[in-house]
């Protein structure tokens, strides 16, 4: 599974992207796994009002299903334009 981080989230977590072996079958499960890395991860990924999720480059939700080869992205609300 390829996990990517963008903008403030990328900077705060100090991670751009990573290949991980995860058995998560939903985004929520993946977030639970990543949250075990420490308080910072737990806190940032729990922020429902700010955390945006994409699966295979399409907007997704916490309950969206995941496949082993999926690309998952986490990022803050967008601010382009």
């Amino acid at each position, binding site marked *: 599974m390829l996990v990517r981080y963008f903008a403030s989230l990328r900077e705060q977590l100090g991670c751009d992207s990573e290949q991980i072996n995860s058995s998560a079958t939903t985004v929520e499960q993946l977030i639970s796994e990543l949250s075990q890395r420490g308080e910072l991860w737990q806190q940032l990924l729990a922020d429902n009002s700010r955390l945006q999720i994409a699966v295979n480059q399409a907007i997704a939700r916490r309950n969206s299903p995941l496949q082993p080869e999926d690309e998952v992205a986490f990022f803050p609300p*967008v601010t*382009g334009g």
Partner: protein
Amino acid sequence: MAIPVTIRVQTEDFDVSTELKQLSANDKTVGALVSFVGLVRDINEGQSIQAMTLEHYPGMTEKALHEIVQAAQQRWPLQGVTIIHRIGDLLPSDQIVLVITASRHRHAAFESADFLMDFLKSKAPFWKKENTPEGSRWVDARESDEVALARWNNAHAL
């Protein structure tokens, strides 16, 4: 019917006249072109802005913009759409984004350009980071952008 749709994400600047001409060059039934240009302002929320960096999510950005254009095409009789968004480092007064809509009549062109900007602002994965005299900061999403988006929901959802 397939209409000319141009979507580009680039570091280089763009020229509005050139893009306008391309949209109407092969279709003499175009009567109205509405364009929106977003510029870097030198002040934002009371802080002076020295420079700005734009990050995006390559691949997803283009996909999101194509979806937004399709949604606009379903609502208005458009004859062409151009969206260009810059990334990388920008200075005050630099052009950030260009949206052009072409149509036979002006109201379709005005409304669809307005719609495209509202959706781009809330749905396309771009992020701005500003350099101020006190250091750099990520720009916060504005609630007014969500309100703007909601205007379009009474008729159709995206």
